[in-house]
């Protein structure tokens, strides 16, 4: 049960933070559901996009931050371009994702978080993405060793395919970028 006004006041600070960072006005949503209508990932969400917006409106911000939906959003921005109120729905969800991280809500969709982290440390190390090692590492960590293995020969067929693409030269600069992020951001 949602209890007003307790619910609103509990979520107020987080909602204000999400609205400020995304530059969006959540209260403008009138729940038409057009965001959900053509969302390709919504079937895998725990809350469809319009419900995420509603939860924010009623102050249930933590539910949104902890939701699988916020993690699974592809940021394809289809909802944002179709919203009749011109709300950047994807921007709101994306902001929720960041705020969730900062609030330490990191339990949902661990695989996905793992993959994104792995991607970034891969980039930190090489300066560029090393697809093969990412695949192997990810499958190993998720104990799903056969995942996409059948695709490998298809890729290997391609000419000039580098199993080990060259690293970038100025790796110190790359490290400085990551250091700067860790200094400025709240990661």
């Amino acid at each position: 049960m949602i209890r007003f006004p307790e619910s609103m006041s509990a979520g107020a600070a987080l909602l204000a933070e999400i609205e400020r960072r995304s530059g969006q006005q959540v209260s403008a949503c009138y729940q038409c559901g057009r965001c959900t209508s053509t969302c390709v990932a919504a079937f895998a969400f725990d809350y469809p996009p319009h419900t995420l917006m509603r939860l924010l409106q009623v102050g249930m911000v933590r539910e949104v931050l902890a939701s699988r939906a916020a993690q699974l959003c592809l940021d394809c921005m289809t909802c944002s371009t179709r919203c009749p109120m011109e709300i950047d729905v994807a921007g709101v969800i994306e902001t929720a994702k960041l705020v969730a991280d900062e609030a330490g809500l990191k339990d949902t969709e661990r695989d996905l978080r793992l993959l994104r982290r792995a991607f970034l440390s891969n980039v930190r190390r090489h300066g560029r993405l090393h697809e093969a090692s990412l695949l192997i590492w990810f499958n190993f960590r998720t104990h799903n060793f056969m995942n996409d293995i059948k695709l490998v020969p298809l890729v290997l067929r391609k000419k000039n395919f580098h199993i080990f693409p060259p690293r970038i030269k100025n790796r110190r600069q790359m490290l400085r970028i990551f250091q700067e992020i860790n200094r400025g951001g709240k990661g």
Partner: protein
Amino acid sequence: MSVYSYFPGCSLKSGATEYDRSFRLVADCFGIGLDELEDWNCCGASPAPHHWGGDLGILLPARNLHIAGASHDGIVAPCAGCFNRLKYAQHELSRNDDLRRRTGQALGQPVHYQTDVLNLVQLLNREIDPEDLARRARGRLSGMTLGTYYGCVLVRPPQIVRYDDPANPVKMEPLLKAAGATIPYFPFKTECCGSYMGLARKEIVLRASRRIIEVALECGVDALVTVCPLCYQNLDLRQRQINDVYGTDYHLPVLYLTQALGLALGFSPEELGIEAHAVNRPPSAL
């Protein structure tokens, strides 16, 4: 001759080498100079903006913008994702002093970010005269019906990429029409293919991509044309996975725009790397 800084991005150097190759072939044909960016780095793709406050999604592409500087007529990123990240970084840097300062700190000098960022379609539209293309096309696309698939990040968010009509983009059409193809109205040209979920949440990708292929076939297309390596991956490489899961029997070729144009210009499917695609059964007219 115009010369552009060329930002291939990770895909064009690994899983999408044929995109790189066909792009260079087509560029050569029309005298477009490509100068690969010295020591470029990954644009950050989808994960970077989702972690550590999101600024990594700006600093990584910013380094590339900085390297490109003002040396050429702009920087071209054929990968739609890379294009989007570069545009996004440019947009944020132009309006956020603090971010600019921090980026400069990481780079060791004030960041240069104002270079003209172009996607592949933009570049080709700028450099190729459709009449010239029509003259040089050898008729290999004539009689072919191609579905133009733009995906998400080429046109969204419109206020940042500022490219084409976000709800109904049409900029690929003049080139492909000049090359001889027929372009039907394809209602799923901007529906998402499932993005980077292929590894961790495959069902999202398969469901989304299946829908695109299904509607494309309904529209009677012989092949889909894209400019995004990730879309290609989901639609072509994973087409067999789609068939396995949904019990379908799709064999819809997916071509990069440069491969389609390359065919029209007389290059062979082998030269263009089409034969290395998962669905490499050439469309009837090839």
